[in-house]
């Protein structure tokens, strides 16, 4: 992603023009900067995309330089859940439970075609959930089967841009899906 694109947030400009509270914008900017630069994911990999996620964390495409320093094994300590791999009917309640156990603010990246929409298993399968957004609300979709590590890094950068748009005066609404 180009530096100019990364820094350019039209919504942020609009908000500044519409006259938000000056005091809060600086605090917001600082908090968002902190949050976006240290997102720690949960170890969650179901199938093939999990391997590309591990490869992204390895030495060639290192995503520790983006702030993803360590993987946390427990959902209570994690910020983001990168759903890498197919979700099936039997696994869906487990995923929902993990998402509920994470503490706010939490984000979701749907990685790979299977998590986005069911992928190669869309037709003729009796046990696959067609897209993880049937179970939990998703922030960023990263398509590919499996997506290249560079694509996952682009997805993480998009998430960072999205986090920078948040503000304390309009807190992030997490939707309760029944």
């Amino acid at each position, binding site marked *: 992603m180009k530096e100019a694109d990364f820094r350019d947030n039209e919504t942020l400009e609009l908000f500044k023009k519409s006259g938000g509270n000056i005091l809060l914008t600086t605090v917001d900017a600082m908090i968002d900067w902190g949050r976006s630069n240290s997102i720690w994911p949960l170890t969650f990999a179901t199938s093939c995309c999990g391997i590309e996620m591990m490869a992204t964390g*390895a030495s060639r495409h290192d995503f520790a330089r983006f702030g993803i320093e360590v993987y946390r094994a427990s959902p209570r300590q994690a910020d983001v859940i990168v759903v890498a791999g197919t979700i099936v009917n039997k696994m869906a309640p487990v995923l929902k439970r993990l998402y509920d156990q994470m503490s706010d603010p939490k984000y979701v990246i749907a990685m790979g075609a299977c998590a986005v929409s069911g992928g190669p298993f869309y037709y*003729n399968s009796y046990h696959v959930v067609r897209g993880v957004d049937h179970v939990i609300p998703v922030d960023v979709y990263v398509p590919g089967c499996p997506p*290249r590590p560079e694509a996952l890094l682009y997805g993480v950068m998009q998430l960072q841009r999205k986090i920078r748009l948040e503000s304390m005066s309009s807190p992030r609404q997490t939707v309760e899906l029944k």
Partner: protein
Amino acid sequence: MKEVIHLPVQNVEEEEYHINMGPQHPSTHGVLRLVVSLQGEIVKSLKPHCGYIHRGIEKMCEKDTYPQIIHLTDRMDYFSAHINNHAVCLLVEKALEIEVPDRVKYIRTIIDELTRINSHQLWWCSFGMDLGALTCFFYGLRDREKILDIFEESFGSRLLHSYYTPGGLMMDIHPDFQKNVKAFIKYFRKKIKDYDNLLTGNIIMQERTKGIGILTREDAINYGVTGPSGRASGFACDVRKRHPYGVYDKVEFREILGTKGDTFERYSMRMHEMLESMKIIEQLIDNIPAGDYSAKMKAVLKLPGGEYYQRVETARGELGVYVVSDGNKSPFRIKFRSPNLSNLNVLDHISRGWKIADLVAIGASMDFVIPDIDR
């Protein structure tokens, strides 16, 4: 002064304590749920619960044509993706009685062996990580990237290529393929010594693996444990030797058998297999015959009615593909005999009596890939 009160001591009964190593756990084997019943720290029994990645591939294949099945078999055991595809291609070619060009056989064998090295490198990463040696993760993945570069140059993607097709290959290999593979072998022969220095000789690793989780030869045959885990117990089950396919009958390589069947032997088996695979590739890489990269095939493949079975040796054991055909372009019934399902069956038997930390080492040495169990 306080009085000391003596409470009557009753018979303390020890109960079994069940813990759940749930579908999401930090070792990267996938979504396997183990309900382990412990007495203190000793494992009394364990029950695996599968099905958390059951995608119904066998039912889906009944609606797909034979070339389309290749894309689904890729995703079953994704570390031996090419070898899974090889099984389906060989079955279709045998049923239709098609002779593929020699060039195709050589290239398929070389790529199978590269896939095997690739899979064992990743196994080594996760084995080290499960025991706590996180450096192994970075070393193994760094070397694995070299193979993925070779694959990307020829096939277009890093993982899951669907490169084989019934009749031959999808396209010819890149002109630099041979040069890059030779450079990789030279590089990796040096690096594998680093692997030994790092992990094999480490006293902690040896204490944690020698004598743990012993599987005898009779049990290995009875439970159907194949692959490096079976060979470590002395069961000579290498399909490349017993029922050769490709050009395995023209190359020289050893089938190494162990005697003790403990975790350390299963570990050494895979390290030796990487060296044997490199030997196979060296014998073949300079002799790839020129020719077509695919035989002439019809547009629609219909297998004659009947049953067919094909066996291949993946990185984890013997994969079998059984097809019942009724003359249409899709199989009537296709079944994949998964090596990991038998290996999982034996986990209960070999981990009784060991501690829960040993269970992690045993599971890492059996090398499961869960999507292959669940298909």
